[in-house]
């Protein structure tokens, strides 16, 4: 279950439609979705933020006032946090209060970790983060995967949650910018988590991969284990003024920055506008990643151009479903 933190709480009513925005480094992509019985794409646009919104609104025949913004690159820090509680009362059934306490511990831990990691990465000791997106990945009781822990008994309750945090300053700027576009910020989601969901094909537990989402100036590098984003790194090299050797070297440096990973997944997926750059896949296949990085074997490389910000429909469906439920 996805939780788009903070923002949904401020939006009690479900709008009829909304525009999903991906502010790329070189161009903005806008997708207008209607929120009737099911979520449907009504229009899309590309260009400057104003152009993209107007194009998508014109095509949809309606201009939404609510926006869902997918963020990536240097504006979001994704990580998966696993917390384990040694229960003092293993014979008692797990109650909602206990799960709530576990979640509280997870979010506290995640915020500390994200703040520590991102402040070091961007060299800003005063960095203040705000949680924007989260998703429960799994619950385990005494090491066994369970769908819902409520009512069960056991000594150790464990949960793994994906979280995305953004700098509070960025979110304030984003809200102000959207006001200029006559839009209200309805929700924020991580673009990388959308890609992971789209690529996992409803089997997240078996989805292990390295995702390289190459945009105009930034390539987002994500390491995914069991459908959970272990971490992301924004590599400031994209398809614009592309230099393959430098990019490959940059990918190697980015992967080396994921400290603690003992064995990377042997599957690399290329997405984004830059995925189709000629020679990219081949160059990656030929690059000796195994030389300095912990790969068990040379990874396979896939190019997936069918996934992207348009997949924010997935998030829209969950937001609409969650809001209906509310």
């Amino acid at each position, binding site marked *: 279950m996805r939780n788009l933190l903070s923002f949904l709480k401020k939006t009690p009513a479900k709008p009829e439609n909304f525009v999903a925005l991906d502010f790329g480094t070189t161009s903005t992509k806008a997708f207008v979705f209607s929120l009737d019985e099911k979520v449907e794409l009504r229009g899309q646009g590309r260009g400057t933020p104003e152009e993209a919104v107007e194009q998508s609104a014109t095509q949809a025949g309606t201009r939404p006032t609510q926006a869902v913004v997918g963020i990536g690159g*240097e504006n979001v820090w994704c990580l998966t946090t696993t917390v*384990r509680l040694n229960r003092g009362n293993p014979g008692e059934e797990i109650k909602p209060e206990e799960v709530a306490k576990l979640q*509280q511990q997870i979010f506290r831990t995640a915020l500390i970790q994200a703040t*520590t990691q991102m402040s070091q990465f961007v*060299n800003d000791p005063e960095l203040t983060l705000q949680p924007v997106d989260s998703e429960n990945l799994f619950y385990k009781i005494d090491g066994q995967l369970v769908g819902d822990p409520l009512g069960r008994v056991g000594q150790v309750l464990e949960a793994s949650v994906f979280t995305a945090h953004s700098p509070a300053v960025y979110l304030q700027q984003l809200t102000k910018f959207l006001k200029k576009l006559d839009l209200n910020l309805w929700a924020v989601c991580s673009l990388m988590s959308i890609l992971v969901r789209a690529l996992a094909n409803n089997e997240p537990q078996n989805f292990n991969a390295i995702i390289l989402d190459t945009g105009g100036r930034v390539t987002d590098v994500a390491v995914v284990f069991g459908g959970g984003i*272990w971490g992301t790194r924004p590599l*400031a*090299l994209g398809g614009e003024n592309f*230099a393959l050797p430098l990019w490959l070297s940059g990918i190697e440096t980015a992967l080396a920055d994921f400290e603690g990973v*003992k064995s990377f997944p042997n599957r690399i997926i290329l997405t984004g506008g830059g995925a189709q750059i000629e020679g990219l896949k081949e160059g990656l296949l030929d690059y000796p990643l195994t030389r300095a990085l912990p790969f068990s074997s040379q990874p396979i490389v896939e190019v997936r151009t069918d996934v992207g910000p348009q997949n924010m429909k997935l998030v829209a469906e969950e937001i609409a479903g969650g809001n209906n439920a509310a």
Partner: protein
Amino acid sequence: MPLESTDGLLEALEKIRRAAKSSAAERGTLSLPDGSPLLRNRLSQKILKKEAQKLGVVVEGLALGDERPPTFGFQEGVDIRPADQVVETGRRIEAGGRRLVEILHSRGMKKFLLFSGTGLAGLGVVTALLWMVPKATVRLDVRSESLVQGFELVASPSATAIDTEKKILPAVLIEVEEKGEQKAEATGKKEKGTEAKGESTIYNWTDDDKTFAKETVLTLIRVEGEKLKFLLAEELTVPAQTASVSATPEERTTTYTPGKKTAAVTAEKVGEEYNLRAGSQFSLAGLSTDEFLAQNSEAFAGGKKEEVTIVTDEDQNRLLTRLKEELEKKAREDIQSRTVGDQKLSEEAIAYEVLGQTFDKEVDEEATDFNLILRLKGSAFIYSQKQLEELVAKLLAEEVPENFDLADKELATEVSAAQIIEGDDGQKMLKIFTKTKAAVVSQVDQDRIKNDLVGRGLNSAQKYLESIPGVVAVEITVFPPLPRPLMRMPQLTSRIDIVLKHD
């Protein structure tokens, strides 16, 4: 090597390449201006260093980030003849007498007197009879007023006679001592038993150590029913929760383990309901169970309860009141039996003093019945009713209003209250509050009335008598009975009797 604030990774690398070609420098310092995107991306800095190294240039001056520490009122209306008129009447009689002697000493008169002497003597006899024989009785009903007066008297054992000035009359102190015993049923109920005891483990889910004082309350968490409470046997400190991080090839896990400590607890009250099964959970001192929770691993035991009958404070007071009333009655009768003659006992003035009371069971002591032994002393002053009335009569006489007299009726004196007091010398006395009812009648000056009535016709006498203040009814009887117009009041005051009547 200066960089522009807009230079990204590519631009910086290009400048390094150019610098490397244009000079043989192997070592260079890269100055990153404020706002440079390179400063906000550790990866970019790493790549920059790495690529420069490939060009044989060592880049210095790059900041790769530091560890960040986690953070609330008679009128005088008498028919008095003026004094000068009384004197004038006397003078006229004296002058008349002198002329009569002169006539009697004349010759003509001597004969006349000789012949008429007998007639005059007979007339004198008749006249004398007219003076001497008539007699009148005047009955006057005079108004009476009721006079009620209260007096505060003192009956003192040290007095031997009544003292009007000090309002004291003699008294005798009588003291009697009574002893009695009575039994009564106890009505109180009390739960008796033992408290359940056991051990409970306290879990601390916070980041700080927590100290719980001795007798901190643990409350059983339950949806319905009484929130049973237990108390910590002693003070203890429960350590904070611990967190440990472990990393495996595929995940990094933070494990939180609550701090815990086992403590001995005792039920707040007695009873079997406190014998809780193992696994029962408790909140502590009203703190959130999300932070502090206690649970017993083994069942609590030893709690039991039974209801017993006990003596209550109310039971003792009830029995004491009952026995005290009984002994007071007995003391009263004993004192009364010691009075003789007209000695009077004021029940209100009997003082009772409990000399001792002994209950064989204490309050709260378990018993079905209990016994009380009570010793009581009754003290009273008795005095002579006659002396009391005598003193009151004297005092009352001083209270009769001007122009009124105390009627010849018996005084009605009653003692409204009495209390034993202590004099300045410490001697006990009886202070008596009396209320005396008497009748006072208007004063009637009988001598003056008789003088004023002499020779008056009946009507005149009637009117005169009725005009006297305080007289409400007049009845005149004259002897010998003659027709009313001929009847007059006697000429001699001694032949007039006045009889006063009042209600």
